[in-house]
Each structure stands twice: as C-alpha cells, then as structure tokens.
C-alpha cells in the first residue's frame, strides 16, 4: 500500500515537473510549482517526515507560489519560447545524470534499516534525546538543541534574505506612487464575501499558528512553521483589507525591528550559557536541572525563530505588494512614458552622470 | 671607520642622494650640487675599500633573510670592486655631463631624472657587491625598473615604444630564464652564495648544468647576447646621458658582469670547461659579435651605430668569460673597464654633437672637426680604445682575449675576433677622420653667422675630455684593475 502510494506520488511529481518545464504560461507554471510542492509534501508524509511535510506544504505550496505570482503580476505572464543553450544544457544534464545514476549503484537499499546512515549518529538521537532533552519530538530536539547552531544559521539565512529583498525593493526617493490609493489590492477588498470569510478565517489561523509554535515539542511543527502560518494569515489580511490597513497594524519599521529581534533572542539565549561557563547554545545552563534548561531554551529559541520568520515573510510580502502598487501607480500616472520611472530612470541617469564624469 | 660600515655606506649613499635630490627639487643648483657631492662621496668610499680588499680582508654585510636561507647580503670581492670603482667613477663624470646636457637641451622633469640616476647607481652597487645570486637578482630587477622611466624620459610615442621593448625583453628574460635558473640552482646546490670554484657538486649532471648555463646566459638579457639584444638599440630614444649610463656603465656592464661572475663563481672555470653547452654558447657569442658589427656598419644614425657596436663589444666580454681560461676571464674583465671608458666617451661626444650642432646622422658629421676639435679628438681616442689599438687601454683587453682564444685553441674564434676588430675599425674610425679631413660641407657657410656651431657646454666638454684621457691613462696604468682581476681569478 505504502509502496504504491510512494510510486504514485513520485510518478505525479515527475509528470508535474515535466509539464512545468513544458508550459509557456508562467501563471500556470507557478500554480503547478505549488502543486509540485504539495505533492512532495505528501511524499514526505509517506516517508514519515511529518515536520518536513508540514514545512514543505507551507513553503512549497504556500509562500513560494505566492511570491512567484506577485512577481508575475509585475513582470508579465507569458514567456517567450526560446531554447537558448538547449544543446549545452542537454549535454550537461546528461553527464550529471549519468554521474548520479552511477553513484546509486553502490547505495544502500532504499529503506534498509541497517544502512550506515541509520546506525552511526541517528540512534543516539532516537534513544538518548528523551533522557537528555526530554521532549518527544526528536526532530525538534535535534533541530533546536543537538544541531541548534544550524537552526541559528537558518534563522540568519531568512533574516539575510529579508534584508536582501529590502535592499532591492525598498522605496527610494526616486519612486513615485505613495500617493495613489486605488490599486488592484484594494479593489479585491470590495468583494464582501471575501471580506467576511477572511474575517472569520484570520483569527483561527493566528490561533493555529500559536498552537503550532508552542506545541512543537510534542507534535510536528515549531517556530518556522508557526511563523509561516502567522505570516500567511497576515498576508491574507493585507490582501483583503489593503496594504495600508495592514501597515497600520504592523508598520514597515516595526516588522524590520521584529525580524532583527527574533535573531537576537535566539543568539542571546545561546550567549546566556556563557554566564555559567557552558558553551554557546548549551541550554542546560538555563536552569538548575539540565533537562528543564533544555526545555526552556527550546521554547525560547523557537519563539525567536517564529518571530523572525513571520516578520521577514511579512516584510517580503509588503515589499512585493509595494512594488505592485507602484507599478500600477506608474501605469495610472505616466502611460505615455516608455520605460517605467523609478529604478531604470535612476540607473540610466546615473549611467549618464558616470559618463559625464569620464568625458 | 671599519670596512664593513664603508660597504654599508657605499650602498646607502645613493639612497641618501635620492632623498637629498627630492628635498632640494625646487632649487636646481643645490640639487645638482647634491648629485655631484654624492657621486664623489660614493667614489671615495669605494676607493677606500680597495686596499683592504687587496690585503685579503673579507668585507661583508648581512642585511636580512628574505626567506630562510635566502639573505640580502653583500661581500666585497675583487671583480665586484672593480665594477664598483668604474661605475662610481663614471657616475661622477656622467652627472657632470648630464648637468650640462640637460640644461643645454632644456629637458623636462630633471628632478625625476637625477633621482632615478641615483637609484640606478645604487642598484649597480648592489649588483657589484652582492654576496649571492638572490641579492644580485633583486638589484638586477630594481635596475631594470628604475631605468625604464629614464629610457622613456621624453614621454613621446616613440619613447613609449622603445620603453616597451626595453622592459619587455629585460623583464621577460630575467623572469622567464634567470629566475628559473636561480631557483633551480638553489634546489640543486642548496646555496646561492658566490664561491671561488663554483657551488655545484662535482657529480651534478652535465646536461642539467648545460641547461642552467644556457638559461643564465640568456636570462641575463642585459648582456645583450643575440637574439636578446633588441632592447639596446630600442633604448636609444633615451636622452644621451642616459644612453651613456645605460650603454657604457650601469645596465650593459651589469649584464656582462653578472655573466662573468656566474661563470667564475657559480660554475667555476673547471666545471665550465666540462660542460658541452659552453662550446656552442661560445660560438653564439662569436656570431653575436660578428652580426652586431655588420649591422653597426649599416647604421646611419650615430647613436644606433654606437648601440650595435656595444652589442658586439659585449659579445667579446661574454665570450671571454665563456672561454673559461684565466687569460680569457682577465680579458673580459679588463674589457668591461676599457669598453666602459671608451663607449661612454663616444656617447658623450654624440650627445655633445647633438646639443651643439643638432646632428644625429653619421654623414652629417663631415668636417665637424673644425668646429668641435676637442669633441672629435675625444671621439677618435675612444674609437681606438674600442677597437683596441694603442695608445689606449683597449689594447690590453683585446690582447688578453686573443690570448685566451689562443690558449684554448679556439682558432675559429680567434679569426672571428680579428675580423670583427677590422669591422669595428670600419664602422668607427671613418667618423672622426671624415670630421677632420672630410673636407668642406655646405654647412660651412654658417660659420661666423650667429648660429655658428661651437663646442658643447663646458661641463660636457670637461666630462668627455676626462673619459678620453682615462682611455689613454689605462694603457699606461692598467695595473689598478689588473691587480684586482688577478686577485679575483
């Protein structure tokens, strides 16, 4: 049964992937990408990777299609059919593929319980985590404690991405559009049904986010998933009730500060252990009893993760939708202009000044 | 004042001169006074090393280790001292001459010019007193780099082209071959310091040694062995004092001196004789001599002709060194000195003619002897010195070179040397002779008119007189250097 499900899912994944590669309508491609994410989440489920499935569902089928769609709204929906470098690509893909296939020949069998991967490090987690950390969800304990530093890195990665997007899309003095209010984003919100449904939905979503956040030790979930869900709820709100409404709730500045705060919470929790001469991220220093210490530590850092992830996601959503509204503002104001004002205008003008400097 | 600190001084004076020149850049006279004083001081310091050297004292200075076992260190040894003496003496004269020339010619950036002059002489001192190949290489490159701006002093496109060839060949050979050879030697012999009798173990394979020798001889591009001689004529775009310094004293002599020193103190006479490569390098040197002389014959531009004559004369020195007999070595060492004096005089004359009469082509010089008797006499003497006939010191070096070929039974080379001497007569002597007895020239009418040609500015004339006198003096008293050379070989 499980095997069949497995095969079916993989087959579906294959089909989806091919059709994504095939299709020229990027909008559809984005949707298919979402489906791809959902399918892989399902696959992870069958593999017993519940947390991963959860996350992949939230990211692969949630955030990333959303972002892609927002981008498409700005960049146009259809791609031009051209296969540049097709030959090179094929050659490269074939070589890499061949290498990979050859690599599989020496691999341990799929699902083999005595594969080296399962007998060296992993058993320690499975058998010791309860006594050492005292929470049932092994993944959480590995994630937050044994390999807590990776997770710290992960938070920083998200933070970095948020800042990167910020640095790319932040409103510069050259950009107009702040004044314009009538944007597609607002127009949606005239739909009464949507408003009501949203009103009803948002509260439980937030609540669920909190549940996922703090239930992470016992069941699937944790800071990251919670953060994503929270962000999704908020983004929904901003879509229905408008960017400005959302900004009134959580201003751009606040979101930035929060994103930083999350990282700092995580880091400082790690630093606390210096006080009692323990190593970085050694939570056992947080309380008399080491297990309690671990427990507290995990709760706190998961909170940090949640805050950062949520705020970064919201920040990114803000920035993307902000672009969207600018775009529409420009289309509304200066249709006659060939290139949209803003970034290109600025960059070309700087180009000009550069060359003046040279001449 | 003990000797080693004298040596330090000899190395530092040029730097002090550089500082002084930079500081007094604003006031010309002071600046040039500084140059002159520094030059004299340097010469004096070097002479002070002479006697102790002959008394067999070891005078050495160790600056610092760049890499473990690779030191910037200096030691006075006879040949080096000889080279240093010649260079530092001629630096005084050249400076004197340069002052006259640069003013007479109204050149730009004189401060830069004199500063680099000082640096290059400093580099020459470094080469002369280097205790090991590494130190030598360092200063060799310094010399290359600091003479580049001198060559391209004019800053015109032509100058830039010349500079390119100059730098290209000198850097190319030194980095491509010389450095490679040095590192190989380092790994092979475990040391780079010069030792009488060479540093290679007796059992080193002759093939490898041949490769090294070839690399060395070609690597020292400053020795201008064909086919790596192109930079020399190319560098003729430089102002004449530079040409004088480059082609008589600093650069080319540094080159042949390095070759000589490598033959003598890295390989050693015995090893050298046993290497197969020596023989055909000899013939290459011979060919270089002959070809250069022939090309020189066909040059109409005076400086170009002198340049090719230099190439051929350098061939003599390399050849002497490669002969690997004491007579040959002596000859080549002596020729370093003699050619230095002779050739610098010739360039001084060329420069004087340029400044005074604005002439650069050979055929324009007919009858110039009347307007510029001193210059032309000097030219005559110097030519004789280069050719190697009395009453000039050139006689000695040529004599020993012949002896060397005779001893080692290289009849072919012997004949070759004779031929090229005849050639050198053919391309040098006509110039002064025509100047004196070449009869009248249309230009003659100009005499008496305000633009009449007369001798070059006094400093220049003094300079070329002194060096010409030097050529004669060396016939009578070659002993000064001869003693050093015998001590060295």
């Amino acid at each position, binding site marked *: 049964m499980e095997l069949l499900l497995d095969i079916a899912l993989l087959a579906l994944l294959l089909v989806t992937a091919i059709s994504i590669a095939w299709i020229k309508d990027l909008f559809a491609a984005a949707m298919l990408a979402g489906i791809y994410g959902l399918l892989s989440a399902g696959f992870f489920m069958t593999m017993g990777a519940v947390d991963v499935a959860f996350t992949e569902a939230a990211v692969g089928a949630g955030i990333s299609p959303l972002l892609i769609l927002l981008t498409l709204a700005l960049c146009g929906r259809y791609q031009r059919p051209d296969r540049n*470098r097709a030959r090179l690509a094929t050659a490269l893909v074939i070589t890499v593929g061949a290498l990979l296939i050859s690599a599989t020949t020496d691999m341990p069998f799929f699902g083999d319980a005595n594969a080296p991967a399962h007998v060296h490090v992993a058993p320690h987690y499975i058998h010791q985590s309860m006594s050492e950390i005292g929470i049932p969800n092994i993944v959480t304990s590995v994630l937050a404690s044994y390999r807590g530093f990776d997770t710290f890195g992960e938070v920083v990665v998200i933070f970095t991405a948020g800042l990167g997007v910020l640095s790319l899309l932040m409103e510069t003095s050259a950009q107009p559009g702040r004044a314009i209010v009538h944007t597609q984003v607002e127009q949606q919100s005239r739909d009464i049904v949507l408003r009501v449904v949203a009103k009803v939905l948002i509260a439980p979503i937030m609540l669920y986010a909190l549940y996922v956040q703090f239930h992470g030790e016992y069941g699937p979930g944790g800071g990251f998933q919670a953060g994503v869900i929270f962000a999704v709820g908020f983004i929904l709100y901003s879509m229905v009730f408008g960017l400005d409404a959302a900004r009134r709730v959580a201003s751009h500045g606040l979101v930035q500060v929060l994103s930083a705060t999350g990282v700092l919470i995580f880091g400082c929790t790690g630093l606390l252990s210096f006080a009692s001469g323990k190593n970085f991220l050694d939570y056992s220093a947080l309380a008399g009893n080491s297990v309690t210490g671990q427990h507290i530590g995990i709760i706190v850092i998961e909170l940090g993760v949640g805050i950062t992830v949520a705020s970064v996601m919201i920040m990114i959503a803000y920035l993307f939708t902000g672009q969207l509204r600018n775009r529409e503002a420009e289309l509304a104001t200066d249709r006659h202009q060939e290139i949209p004002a803003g970034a290109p205008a600025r960059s070309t003008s700087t180009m000009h000044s550069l060359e003046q400097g040279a001449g | 004042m003990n000797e080693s600190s004298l040596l330090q001084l000899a190395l530092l004076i040029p730097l002090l001169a550089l500082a002084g020149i930079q500081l007094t850049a604003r006031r010309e006279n002071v600046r040039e006074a500084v140059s002159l004083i520094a030059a004299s001081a340097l010469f004096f310091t070097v002479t002070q090393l002479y006697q102790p050297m002959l008394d067999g004292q070891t005078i050495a200075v160790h600056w610092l280790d760049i890499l473990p076992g690779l030191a910037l260190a200096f030691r006075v040894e006879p040949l080096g001292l000889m080279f240093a003496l010649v260079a530092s003496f001629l630096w005084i004269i050249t400076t004197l001459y340069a002052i006259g020339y640069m003013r007479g010619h109204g050149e730009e950036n004189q401060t830069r010019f004199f500063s680099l002059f000082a640096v290059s002489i400093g580099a020459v001192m470094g080469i002369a007193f280097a205790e090991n190949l590494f130190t030598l290489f360092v200063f060799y490159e310094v010399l290359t780099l600091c003479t580049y701006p001198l060559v391209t002093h004019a800053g015109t496109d032509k100058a830039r082209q010349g500079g390119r060839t100059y730098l290209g060949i000198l850097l190319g050979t030194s980095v491509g071959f010389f450095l490679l050879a040095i590192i190989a030697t380092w790994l092979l012999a475990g040391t780079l310091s010069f030792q009488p009798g060479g540093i290679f173990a007796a059992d080193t394979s002759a093939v490898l040694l041949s490769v090294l020798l070839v690399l060395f001889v070609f690597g020292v591009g400053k020795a201008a062995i064909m086919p790596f001689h192109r930079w020399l004529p190319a560098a003729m775009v430089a102002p004449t004092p530079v040409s004088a310094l480059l082609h008589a004293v600093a650069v080319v002599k540094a080159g042949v001196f390095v070759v000589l020193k490598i033959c003598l103190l890295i390989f050693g006479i015995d090893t050298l004789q046993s290497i197969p490569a020596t023989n055909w390098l000899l013939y290459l040197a011979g060919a270089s001599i002959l070809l250069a002389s022939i090309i020189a014959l066909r040059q109409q531009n005076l400086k170009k002709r002198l340049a090719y004559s230099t190439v051929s004369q350098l061939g003599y020195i390399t050849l002497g060194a490669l002969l690997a007999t004491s007579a040959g070595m002596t000859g080549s060492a002596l020729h370093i000195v003699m050619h230095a004096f002779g050739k610098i005089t010739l360039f001084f004359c060329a420069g004087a003619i340029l400044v005074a009469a604005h002439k650069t082509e050979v055929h324009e010089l007919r009858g110039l002897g009347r307007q510029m008797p001193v210059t032309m006499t000097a030219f005559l003497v110097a030519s004789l010195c280069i050719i190697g006939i009395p009453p000039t010191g050139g006689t000695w070096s040529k004599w020993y070179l012949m002896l060397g070929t005779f001893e080692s039974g290289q009849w072919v080379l012997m004949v070759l040397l004779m031929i090229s001497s005849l050639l050198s007569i053919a391309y040098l002597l006509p110039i002064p002779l025509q100047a004196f007895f070449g009869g009248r020239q249309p230009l003659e009418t100009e005499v008496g008119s305000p633009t009449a040609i007369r001798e070059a500015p006094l400093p220049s004339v003094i300079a070329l007189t002194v060096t010409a006198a030097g050529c004669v003096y060396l016939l009578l008293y070659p002993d000064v250097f001869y003693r050093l050379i015998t001590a060295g070989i």
Partner: protein
Amino acid sequence: MLLTSHYNYWVVIALMMIGLYMVIAQGNLVKKIIGLNIFQTSVFIFYISVGKVDGGHAPILTEGESLYSNPLPHVLILTAIVVGIATTALALALTIRIKRAYGSIEERDIQAAEELQERASSQMYARTPARKEQ
C-alpha cells in the same frame, strides 16, 4: 532487486535533471527560478528517502514504538527548505528590479541591451581628447 531498492533514487535524479535543465536552458528568469526550486526540492526528496526506514514511524517518541525513521535528514532538510525559500525570494526580488531596469525578463533581451550599452559607452569614450605628445 535493484529496481525495487533504487527506483526512488532514480526518479529523484530524473526530477533533479529536469530542474537543472530548466535552470540552464530556459530564457525566462522566473522560469529559471522555478526550475531552481524543482532542482532543490528534488534534492530534499532524495535526503528524505535516505532517512526512510522500512516500517519506521514518524520520529516522535511514543510508547511502545522502537522503530523510527531517521530524524537527522529531516532536520537537515528543514534547514535546507528555509534556505531554498530565502534564495527564491531574493531571486524574485532581483527579477522585479531587472524588469524595471531592462524592461524585460528574457535573457536574450537583457544580453542584447548589455551589448548595446557597452558599445555606447565605448563610443562615448572614443570622443575623449587624444593623447598629448611632448
């Protein structure tokens, strides 16, 4: 035998290659990014397959269970997923800016614009004063 034990890996490899192909061959920047997503996601699938243990349960300790699937790959992939979405977000933001700057998100147009600009600037400099002779 090999089939039943390895088909998982092979499918994953196929998925990876599709993704990689898209990244290289597609001219549209957004499509490239989607390709990148597929490529990475399939790597995740590979990792999770490695973590699979026959009859193993989700790695959440429960009474009377001894066989769990390997938690370590799950942890790694949780991190990797986050990295993936981070990259995607950044890439998309870049795409938006590129669209604004070049007015297109097709590789060809952009490269064409590049060459044009390059030529323009060199012509601009060709007009600067010629060198002086001394």
